[in-house]
């Protein structure tokens, strides 16, 4: 027996050792680059700010209190609203796309490929492309002007709509893919059974297809909602200063404003919201066998 084979055979006999050696590297990685930084940020959020950035020890709840200022609560409200709107829009646009692809037979792979293609290019580059589309002299306005639909260019850029459009554009594949997977798994015989039992197309969708694809919908919603909540690139580039979101706020505090503790507190509040969302997701998922999931 070669050394490697002997090692594998040994691991086979000791499942705990095998588990440890499989999980070890990942655990170490997360401890070092996820847990430790988070702990540092958490600690920072209770410290006093340093003059040139950084922190100077101490303990204060000032930064959390500061977040309750109407100014920041407004930012927070706008962020949640945008993230929810983005999730809903992604669902409304993405579900029919996923549904069509799941039924596209031999075109399936090509269509899936097309959904994923945008992810090949840097998000930054694609967001700049959106700027070219949406600005006063951009493509959309040029077409509208040429068609005589409008006399003056519409203000599209640096609006909540532009941010929403950018977020939906960016996260749409994250909605389409999980829904596609759950629709793809759906046994077509179930729909035939429903049809023979008297269900017309719409009834089949509501009673069979939608409930059985619910896990995909919930997963897609999580995949879109969480990054949308923390997004900073899109609101920064497409929303400008007026459309600040919590993500841009955090970036700002660590950057230009040099208020690391406040930035830390803001990001922890954001994380709390995400945590609530994830818990809600887990509850939905665990309840699912009764109502939604196979």
């Amino acid at each position, binding site marked *: 027996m070669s050394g490697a084979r002997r090692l594998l055979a040994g691991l086979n006999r000791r499942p705990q050792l095998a588990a440890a050696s499989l999980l070890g590297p990942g655990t170490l990685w997360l401890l070092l680059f996820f847990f430790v930084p988070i702990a540092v940020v958490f600690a920072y959020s209770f410290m006093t700010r340093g003059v040139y950035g950084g922190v100077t020890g101490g303990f204060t709840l000032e930064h959390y209190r500061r977040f309750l200022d109407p100014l920041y609560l407004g930012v927070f409200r706008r962020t949640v609203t945008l993230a929810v709107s983005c999730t809903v829009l992604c669902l409304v646009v993405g579900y029919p796309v996923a549904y069509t692809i799941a039924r596209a037979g031999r075109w399936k792979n090509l269509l899936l490929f097309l959904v994923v293609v945008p992810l090949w290019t840097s998000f930054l580059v694609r967001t700049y492309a959106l700027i070219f589309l949406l600005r006063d002299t951009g493509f959309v306005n040029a077409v509208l002007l040429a068609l005589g639909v409008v006399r003056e260019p519409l203000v599209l850029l640096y609006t909540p709509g532009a941010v929403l459009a950018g977020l939906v554009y960016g996260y749409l594949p994250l909605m389409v893919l999980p829904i596609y997977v759950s629709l793809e798994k759906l*046994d077509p*015989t*179930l729909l*035939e*059974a*429903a*049809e*023979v*039992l*008297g*269900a*017309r197309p719409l*009834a089949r969708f509501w*009673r*069979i297809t939608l*409930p*059985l694809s619910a896990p995909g919908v919930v997963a897609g919603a999580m995949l879109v909602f969480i990054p949308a909540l923390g997004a900073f690139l899109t609101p920064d580039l497409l929303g400008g200063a007026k459309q600040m979101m919590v993500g841009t706020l955090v970036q700002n505090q660590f950057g230009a404003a040099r208020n690391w503790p406040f930035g830390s507190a803001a990001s922890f509040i954001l994380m709390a919201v995400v945590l609530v969302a994830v818990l809600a997701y887990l509850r939905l998922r665990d309840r699912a*066998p*009764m*109502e*939604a*999931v*196979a």
Partner: protein
Amino acid sequence: MTDTGPQSSDLVVQLSRASKRFGTVTAVDAVSLDIRRGEFFSLLGPSGCGKTTTLRLVAGLEEPDDGDVRLLGEVVNRRRPYERPVAMVFQNYALFPHLDVRRNVAFGLEQRRVPADRIRERVRRALGLVRLDPDTYARRMPSQLSGGQRQRVALARALVIEPAILLLDEPLGAIDLKLRKEMQLELKALNRQLGITFVYVTHDQEEALTMSDRIAVMNQGRVAQVGTPAEIYENPRTAFVADFIGECNFFDGTVAERDGAVATVARDDGLRFRIPAVNGVAPGRAVRIAVRPEWHDVWRPDEVPPAENALPGVVRDVVYLGETVHVLVRLPEGADARVALRNEGQLTKPVPWRAGDQVAIGWLPEDCQVLEEE
């Protein structure tokens, strides 16, 4: 075998030269069938013979490319399944995994907008019909049921809508043998009790023989023969049917002479045997006959009764099967003929043949089936 000419109103399912093609493959090829009210009708054949597609044509899950499908006398070619008086039990049961037993069974009634209290009552009754205790099982999810229980739920879900026609697509395929035998009898009893016409797809010849009033044997998209189990078994029309249903020995030859009700056939090796002179048997015609193993006898070569046909051979093996003992006899042309002898107790009255014995296989001229060409 004489049909008393059923009234056309009694024909619940009628296929008239119905065809279904998938690309270049003709799955169902000009199939004509008449299925009578209340009948237990089986579509029997090997996989790929078109039996399931035929069933789907009746269900409305496929539309015929040619020909007509009539249900209760009406042409329904383009009607969707939910516009037909049918229910179906699928091969893999197709229970809705997200609904409990109660909601699965109620599904068809909910689609028909039956009031809730009526639904509750009819679901209980349907579960009782398939012998599932509603109090124990109504709230279970399909994943919490055994294969046999799922099968019963699927059956209840189909029966609860009180269809005129119940279509069953190999419903017992995934159930173990003992339970399968039990379910066969139960299905048969339900068919009698409810007066619903059952159309049953199976590849299991024994199952078809056990349960059916009539069987359509299918091969390569066509109906090879329709008849009662006894007709199919005892008078198979083609070699395919004879071979597919039960076991058979085949003998070929050319008709040498015809004398009244009996014709004599000469084999290539010059040996002769007699057959009933049925239609189409004329001197010079090549014929093939089928003889069931249990229609044969084994004789010592010099003891063959004069009334029987006989072919010489050598015993190759004696196989003990419990109810019967099979004697495999190698014939001059090198083929094995199988002879089934009733087991009268191998410990007390053993079969006298051993491998290597010179014997003759015999059969009465009327105990054979003259086959048609396919």
